[in-house]
């Protein structure tokens, strides 16, 4: 079987979808965050100069994916930061504790792309896949 990429984006008429994979839930969630920020900026140009700690909770895994990504959207917007690396310190079906590494958005250096408004619950999915997990979300642009 062809090796699947850690994350990819897919088309939606009005917005953009992300699919991410990982050997476990933590890796899949970290890759989902990368997928989201890859839509905003060139990920490989983001230096890990600042760190933010994130805690999010929800009633189930799918809700947790939304809560996690929404928390990153919020932090990115209010602190004007973009993130490129994510360390998940703790994860269950209903709670995530993690650190995000990035730096202030630099319009000249980061090649800014889409502005993410929010994380929708449309077509939301967290599912076991190939011994790991695959997650899917649609972002409002």
């Amino acid at each position, binding site marked *: 079987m062809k090796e699947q990429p850690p994350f990819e984006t897919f088309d939606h008429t*009005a917005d953009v979808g992300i699919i991410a994979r990982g050997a476990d839930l933590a890796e899949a969630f970290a890759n989902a965050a990368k997928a989201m920020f890859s839509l905003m900026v060139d990920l490989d140009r983001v230096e890990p100069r600042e760190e933010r700690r994130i805690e999010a909770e929800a009633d189930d895994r799918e809700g947790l994916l939304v809560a996690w990504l929404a928390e990153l959207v919020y932090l990115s917007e209010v602190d004007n930061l973009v993130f490129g690396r994510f360390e998940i310190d703790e994860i269950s079906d209903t709670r995530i504790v993690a650190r995000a590494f990035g730096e202030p958005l630099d319009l000249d250096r980061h090649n800014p792309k889409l502005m993410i408004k929010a994380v929708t619950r449309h077509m939301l999915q967290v599912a076991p896949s190939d011994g790991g997990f695959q997650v899917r979300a649609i972002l409002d642009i």
Partner: protein
Amino acid sequence: MAKGWLSSLEKVDEYRWLLPTSYKPGMRVPGLIYADERLLKTMAGDEAVEQVANVAFLPGIVGYSMAMPDIHWGYGFPIGGVAAMRLNGGVVSPGGVGFDINCGARLIRTNLTEAEVRPVLDRLADQLFRDVPSGLGAHGPLRVSNKELDDIMVRGAAWMLDRGYGLPDDLEATESHGCLAGADPATVSQRARERGREQLGTLGAGNHFLEVEVVEAVYDEEAARAFGLEIGQVVVSFHCGSRGFGHQVCQDYLAVMEKAARQFEIVLPDRQLACAPIDSKPGKDYLAAMAAAANFAWANRQAIAHWTRGAFAGVLGRSVEELGMTQVYDVAHNIAKVEEHRVDGQSMRLCVHRKGATRAFPPGHAEVPPRYRKVGQPVLVPGDMGRYSYVCAGTERAMAETWGSTCHGAGRLQSRGAAKRSLQGVDIVGRLEARGIVVRVRNRSLIAEEASEAYKDVADVVEVLDRAGISRKVARMRPLAVIKG
């Protein structure tokens, strides 16, 4: 991915298609789609009609789950969707309003002609681009305290007017006078405040824009005269909403509504349709927070209108009054409002969700400004940046059939990715410039996603409104300058 809807649709007439409740078990009412055969075909590629069926599941929905001719695949509701719920036993759904609460459009007239503006168009575009912040990471120049933000949530556009941002007549020429009642700052999270505060007075990115346009056609002389529009006249139009403030309010309440939907045992075909009874605590809280976000959006557009006028006055060297820069109208197209409508001959208060749909009240309605009351409420229908935009007017038929609603724009045809792929190597900005359209865009690489090819032809959409009788065509404008994030 169900595509069975095409064969399930029943043709009512050339412009109306019924999606029967038998299409999907759980639909409480049929769907009703406003489109001609050609537009219907453009919907074949996405999930919009499936979403019309999903909205019909919502408790308390009255009449039909409706779709305007600009309908396209959204999240939860289709974009271009209209649904009204009974106050007693009905639900309110944040997904039926969208993340960009009170995203809307505003149109300002001038007494300038294209010939007067053409020589200074580049300078004018530069000035507008400088004065109206846009794009990723943009911050507004206004600094407001927590208390001031509370006031903005409650008072909307009037707050800006008190500070000299605008002309006294602006409020009358704004839907709901730029202020939705019932806003309660206590229902708005700290996060929404933080996101909103920095972005007050910004345009945003994506499909948001500011355009200098010229009126190139008039279809209804009487209405055009009432709206103060004539052929050859330069006008300014812009499209934006409540920025991070509204996005966060919606994000916060979707989580609340998911719990509520479980608690009230509401069956949902899509999690994004999470909702709660209108008269429940989560329902009331959401409506109070949504009103706060709607008012933030009206304050936002009021500030942008002020800077737009300032840019014109500065570049043209004449005062705003001399330039005749009064407001034609300001409409919301992502909103839920409690309104009085007639249901089976009886007057009834309903919660009307307009997700990518515009209010279109008829002549004589008390909420239409007195100076437009003979012709109906102005409806602003932006097209794409390469072609044209329309002004329409509300009708009795809209009031009777669509809860006084109509379309909100052209509607997307292609996804962002598809547009970018199909336009690879095409110099979109150059192509617009070759046609005399001045473009100022912060992010040139994204311009293909907003090119004409990505959208339906708004002329086709407006034609359906006009022929179906749910709006009247009044005037068409073509762009002279386009400002984008």
